[in-house]
């Protein structure tokens, strides 16, 4: 059964999340197959001046250790990446990360819009963007860019969110392909992974 009409040409999954997304993220990272086929690139709002602890907390239940990339690190299949504290994280043509300390965007560094927008630019229609619970509008513009370049957009169902401002803002700004609760997102990712096996 291929409920979501998926194919195996996607190159990456990007996830944005903010207030109220931690639990959802850990459920997703523990619910998908161990040998998940695509890179998962996450930009989550976090304390700006706490460098350590967050990846460790996310890694406890995750299928794979979550790592913060260094600048210009290559993006590898099946790895789980998290934007480091106090840096914006971009995707560069040639499939690597770039970090930057530019001004905050939407009051955030890392800003979800930057990660999503640069990923959309590099992966075009080979990208899946997922936006989770959050209390501001960061990520909405990024989701719009993903849609414009032919990628697939998913938001956490506002009814399933602790704080629904973020997905609601994205739904207002652009077309969203699927509106799913966390269980639905996990089922989606499992089905996606099957296309590669």
């Amino acid at each position: 059964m291929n409920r979501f009409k998926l194919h195996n040409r996607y190159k990456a999954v990007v996830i944005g999340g903010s207030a109220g997304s931690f639990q959802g993220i850990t459920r997703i990272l523990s619910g998908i197959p161990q040998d998940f086929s695509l890179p998962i690139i996450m930009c989550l709002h976090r304390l700006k001046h706490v460098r350590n602890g967050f990846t460790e907390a996310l890694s406890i239940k995750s299928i794979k250790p979550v790592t913060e990339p260094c600048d210009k690190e290559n993006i590898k299949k099946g790895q789980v990446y998290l934007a480091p504290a106090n840096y914006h994280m971009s995707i560069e043509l040639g499939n690597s990360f770039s970090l930057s300390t530019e001004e905050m965007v939407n009051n955030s560094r890392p800003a979800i819009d930057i990660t999503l927008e640069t990923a959309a630019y590099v992966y075009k229609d080979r990208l899946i963007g997922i936006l989770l619970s959050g209390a501001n509008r960061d990520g909405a513009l990024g989701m719009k860019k993903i849609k414009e370049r032919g990628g697939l957009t998913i938001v956490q169902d506002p009814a399933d969110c602790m704080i629904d401002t973020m997905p609601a803002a994205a739904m207002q700004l652009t077309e969203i392909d699927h509106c799913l609760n966390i269980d639905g997102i996990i089922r989606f990712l499992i089905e996606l992974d099957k296309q590669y096996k």
Partner: protein
Amino acid sequence: MQDIEIADIRNLTQVIKERYNYDFTNYAMSSFKRRVQRVIDLYKFASVGHLVSRIKEDPAFFHDFISEITVNVTEMFRDPSFWRVVRDHIIPNIMLNHDTISIWHAGCSSGEEVFSMSIMLKEMGVLNKAKIIATDIDKEILDKAKKGLYAVKHMDLNEKNYIRYQGTGSLKDYYEEREGKVYMDRSLVANVSWREHNLVNGPVFNKFDLVLCRNVMIYFNQTLQNEVLKRLHESMFKYGYLAIGSKESLIWCEIANKFIVVNNEEKIYKKIKE
């Protein structure tokens, strides 16, 4: 709003190179593109083409362009744990063999890193043994650094960093607040020489015991990182130290084998080969 094309960027950097001898061709595309977009928005240019024409015609504008295109965001005692390692291990190690110490801040921005260094050295009682050179490509930000004049709103973060660094005093010992502005104690940087210098094509002008080039090379692509690392390497004494930003890495660079990692968490390296 139409996205900026890579061809537009190539044209822009080509014009800048020919007209002004500044070379941005190997800056990291993602952030450089955003910076160009930012200038276009700020000055309300109708297109990249209009920006290029203005740059061609107006050298004064070109200098404004440089200061807008560079990312100057910085903090005092950024990464407090880094500064503890410098204080507890790096400086004492250098002082074992010399009684003076030469330091280069490459890409010093508005000077917070330089003031942090001076405060640290002062608290260690060795400030008078240090010779410090601070450079940046952006003349305007250097002028700001020289003044040591900062906005009060940034001091909250600076103070927090200083506390986490575990300095011996209080950051307040080193500045005065007047009319909503912070004036750093200028005697801290009396021995600092501030210079305009471009890491991409500027000369190797000296040798140092300690080079800080933190959060600067992240704006370069890998080709340029390789080139600049060679220059930094040439600017260091054998067994000198190099510090880069906490999320940067040298391991991909061609001359990585000329360094060893001294502290991987804080990204401090030591030059072991000429």
